[in-house]
């Protein structure tokens, strides 16, 4: 068994579980941060996003930790990570322009569940999460998963 692929799945799962829970336990704080991106005008939509996204991340994190629907979850996370990273980058560029400071000196709470962070570090983190998602999407990380090991079903 390739331990590194299992570790990669667990790492990605734990990261999303942690980020999701930290937001789910402070939903109002997340709502305020999400509002700053000004992506939706409707309060119903904004509330729905702030209410659902953290728990959705928790759900995905749990699936990865347990090894259920690994590729589908990895694809879902990629679909989430790409636009959110774009939004974070856009906001960082606005802040950089407003404050006239070097790009990597921009520090803010992006609402990602990791608190205030320097933008370059945040982008690197997201890039690594994205890489792990791609890795799992390619079919790695099935060892010690519920479907292929614990329930003894063979991969297609």
């Amino acid at each position: 068994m390739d331990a590194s692929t299992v570790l990669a799945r667990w790492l990605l799962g734990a990261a999303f579980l942690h980020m999701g829970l930290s937001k789910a336990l402070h939903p109002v704080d997340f709502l305020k941060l999400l509002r700053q991106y000004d992506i939706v005008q409707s309060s119903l939509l904004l509330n729905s996003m702030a209410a659902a996204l953290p728990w959705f991340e928790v759900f995905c994190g749990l699936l990865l930790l347990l090894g259920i629907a690994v590729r589908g979850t990895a694809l879902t996370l990629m679909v989430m990570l790409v636009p959110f990273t774009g939004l974070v980058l856009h906001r960082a560029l606005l802040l950089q322009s407003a404050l006239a400071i070097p790009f990597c000196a921009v520090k803010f709470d992006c609402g990602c569940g990791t608190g205030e962070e320097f933008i370059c570090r945040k982008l690197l983190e997201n890039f690594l999460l994205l890489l792990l998602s791609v890795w799992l999407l390619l079919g790695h990380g099935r060892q010690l998963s519920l479907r292929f090991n614990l329930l003894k079903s063979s991969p297609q």
Partner: protein
Amino acid sequence: MLVAIFGAAFAFAANQISPLGLALTRDYFPSGTVHSVRPVAGLKVSQVPGTNFEALSPAQSLAAQMKERGLQLLDDRQAALLFHDPRFKQDIIVFIDARDEEHYQQGHVPGAYQFDPYHPEKYFNTVLPVCQKAEQIVVYCNGGDCDDSESAALLLRDVGISNQKLFVYGGGIAEWQTNSLPVEIGARNSGNLRNMNK
């Protein structure tokens, strides 16, 4: 696709069950203003392309916003005067802290009532009768980029408290503490005060 469907179902169910869950249909931001880029403490943002901070300092922007909403803005000197006014002890002048429980417990204006605008139902029973009797109500939050005081004032206005009585202290607790004014720790009237320099 299945992950997305089951995930969404799980997420909304969890939000519904969680005691901290958000009410989807509530307007949590009655002030309606969105600050795309908020000023960072200690740095001036005088012109931010594509945001509502263009050509206005944060203080000017806040004052204009208050005026637009029919609310009155207080500065630190006025807030301190009201705090030291003998009518404050009789609840004729009332301070309202619009922050959450955690921040309120960490330190608030002595004698201030808590009114978290994100959970107003928890506080209406206590705060409404007080506000109805009061002649001047000072609402504050963290200060700086925080607009929860404005949201709280608008909520109070919406339940019948006159605009004329509502004042927003823009500098908030941060400015209050910077000015070394007393802060009460824990519950209201706990008597646990600090920063009694003035």
